[in-house]
């Protein structure tokens, strides 16, 4: 166990770290975060014994760091440095073998079978056995970093310290390296203390995180607790939005550039962007919209510029055929929400509604089989919960209107029709924190959906 008790330290003329108190437990992946100049690297130098503490003490397994000889410390703790260039042409194997320095015994420091075994093992673990006779200079940055990791592991340390281990590595190498470390933490009970530059990587891999600010602890704990919007914005002096990772219970921080493209300014979403043709309805926005879509191509949460509905009596409306429609009509698949229903001419109505709080365009189409699609294009900044409330409100309004109209839907083709709802917001303009029935926006949505559906159903009766 690594314990820091009221540690202070720094360089001759400057105290960088003050009053550091924390413990790192065996088999823990401990991440250190903080803006530039917050003292991350200085802290790591103190822990690795490169700098002396000016106050307090650092203990490794209940023994003061100063009481270890350099060699004894190297058998307990290894350091993976940031990638640097090297002047001399050492082979990969020689470089890894250097990691055994602290373990060599006796006057002649003989190389034993055990040393050989360890070197072989760590080269296997880091997947560098294949190029063990190559020169360091011949390797890519990612491979070199693995060689130095192997060197550090050859020390057979209990604690491994890393200073921005993924610096200069591309995405796949970052993942490989951190996965490997994570595996060694789990399987071999290695303790890892790593400085991270990237808040999101730290969140993904760290069991606990230490967020530093001005040489002191700002927050310490599980990623969920440490990485809150307010703390991160405060420490890094920036603006981030917190979001959960799509498949892991870890928070992720998203940067919001302050100079956002000005194309979103100076226009609002209205009927002029809608193009109603007999065979398809298209909505084309000048800028990407944040969209929640219940069905079709591009469904789920995303950013899209095009919302398209094709009417095709022969369609089977699955995702694969959708690609053909997109390609045929030249829509960018990455920016399109697309859906297909069987349909007939004049089955689209739209209604533009506005009150003091917000304005929105509602588009309703009804397919031949009775499938109703409701699209809402809202001028304003919506939160995730506002999107969900908008969907609920729209669905409620639709059901209510159908009931009032006395429409009972019996499908003419196939199973019971699945209605579709798309909510799209400009994310510019007034803040719209909610869209429930008790809120202005909710009422507007309700009104618009009802009116559009009335309009559509009445025209049907004609």
């Amino acid at each position, binding site marked *: 166990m690594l314990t820091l008790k009221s540690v202070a330290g720094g360089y*001759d003329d400057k105290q960088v770290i003050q009053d550091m108190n924390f413990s790192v437990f065996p088999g823990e992946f401990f991440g250190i975060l903080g803006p530039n100049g917050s003292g991350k690297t200085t802290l790591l130098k103190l822990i*690795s*014994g*490169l700098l002396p503490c000016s106050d307090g003490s650092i203990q490794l397994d209940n023994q003061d760091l100063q009481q270890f*000889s*350099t*060699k004894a*410390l*190297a*058998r307990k*703790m*290894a*350091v993976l*440095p940031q990638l*640097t*260039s*090297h*002047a*001399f*042409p*050492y*082979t990969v194997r*020689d*470089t890894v073998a*250097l*990691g055994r*320095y*602290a373990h*060599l015994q006796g006057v002649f*420091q003989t190389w034993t079978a055990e040393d050989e075994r360890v070197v072989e093992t760590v080269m296997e673990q880091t997947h560098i056995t294949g190029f*063990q*006779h190559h020169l360091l*200079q*011949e390797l890519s940055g990612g491979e070199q970093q693995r060689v130095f990791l192997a*060197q*550090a592991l050859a*020390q057979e340390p209990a604690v491994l310290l890393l200073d921005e281990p993924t610096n200069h590595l591309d995405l796949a190498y970052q993942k490989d390296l951190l996965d490997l470390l994570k595996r060694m933490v789990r399987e071999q009970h290695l303790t890892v203390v790593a400085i991270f530059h990237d808040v999101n990587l730290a969140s993904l891999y760290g069991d606990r995180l230490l967020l530093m600010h001005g040489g002191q602890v700002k927050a310490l704990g599980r990623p969920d607790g440490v990485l809150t919007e307010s703390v991160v914005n405060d420490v890094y002096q920036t603006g981030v939005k917190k979001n959960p990772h799509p498949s892991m219970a870890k928070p992720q921080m998203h940067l919001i550039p302050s100079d956002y493209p000005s194309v979103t300014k100076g226009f609002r979403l209205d009927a002029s962007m809608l193009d109603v043709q007999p065979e398809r309805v298209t909505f084309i926005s000048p800028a990407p919209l944040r969209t929640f879509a219940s069905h079709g191509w591009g469904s789920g949460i995303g950013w899209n510029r095009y919302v398209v509905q094709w009417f095709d009596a022969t369609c089977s409306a699955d995702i694969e055929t959708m690609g053909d429609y997109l390609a045929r009509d030249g829509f960018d698949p990455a920016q399109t929400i697309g859906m297909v229903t069987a349909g007939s001419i004049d089955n689209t109505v739209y209604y533009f509604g506005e009150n003091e709080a917000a304005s929105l365009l509602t588009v309703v189409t009804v397919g031949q089989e009775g499938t109703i699609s409701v699209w809402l294009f809202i001028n304003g900044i919506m939160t995730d919960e506002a999107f969900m409330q908008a969907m609920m409100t729209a669905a409620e309004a639709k059901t209510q209107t159908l009931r009032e109209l006395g429409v009972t839907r019996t499908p003419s083709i196939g199973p019971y029709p699945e209605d579709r709802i798309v909510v799209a917001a400009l994310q510019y303009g007034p803040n719209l924190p909610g869209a429930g029935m008790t809120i202005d926006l909710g009422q507007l949505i309700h009104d618009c959906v009802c009116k559009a559906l009335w309009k559509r159903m009445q025209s049907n009766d004609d």
Partner: protein
Amino acid sequence: MSTQTSLTNKYVLAYGVTVAFFFLSMLTAVSIGTVSIPLVETVNIIGGQLFHLSIDDHIGAMHTNIIVDIRLPRVLLAGLVGGSLAISGAVFQGLLQNPLADPYILGVSSGASVGAVATLFFNISIPLLGLYTLPVLSIVTALLTMFVVLFFARQADRAMRVETIILTGVIFSSFLGSFISLIIALTDDRLQQIMGWLLGSVSMRGWDYIGIILPFFIIGTLILLMNSKELNALVFGEARAKHLGVDVQKRKIIILVAGSILTGAAVAVSGAIGFVGLVIPHMMRRLWGPDHRHLLPLSIITGAGFLMLTDLVSRTIISPSVLPIGVITALIGAPVFALILMKQRKGMRGGL
């Protein structure tokens, strides 16, 4: 295991080649001269001396005198100086992580030169030392310079980073260099003597000079050879070496002092002979790899052989005149070095 064998084979070859080069150079250097002695006879004479066999005939006796009293000490001195400069060059390059460093970078040679040049200029002769006043004073000033450089480096930077040590060395080098220039400017009758010493020579020294350098050579090389593992780690930087378990502060000083002692002793007995300490370790590293456990011994052997050959060239090329050996090492060394550098840069273009 096959890789292990091929590695061992590589070093067997390395030592075979360098040792063969060493003995060939030595025998050639001892045989050839104003009076050329056949190789076989040279071997016989040296063997005879070693095993105390007597040689009766007259020519044999004359040749024995030439070889034992004149050639052999001269050649061996060249060997010791070459070996010292080559190994200290290798360790300075490793320690400073710079393949272009040489043994003179810490200003030790300037210190030795100031001692020697001052001895010549003021015609100093210390009783008891007599003719050996110059090498002894030179060694003393060399060691003094080394300690002063290390002391000032420590004052400037308590961690004594190598950059600080280099800078301090460079400052002292030029400072001491100005004294040498001053003495050269002031002197008139001793100019040739001083220049001759500065350019380096191993002629007319005799066995006593070998006695002067030998203890320093043995102690210095032993210390360095015992630190070859640490040097391997230090090549990756001081912080890295410390993390690998090397007591950097202690080892660094030991290595610097040992290297400086070797350099100082070599300069004291032969003058500041350039290029050996730069080119030989560089060549060895390119040929056999940078592992200091082998690089150091290989550099000693090759450096020794190289300087014996260079000395041979210097005294035979425009015989009976003798060229300064430092001129020859630079004449041979510079083009060789340029060639290595060009090849290396070409090789690197594809990579980094």
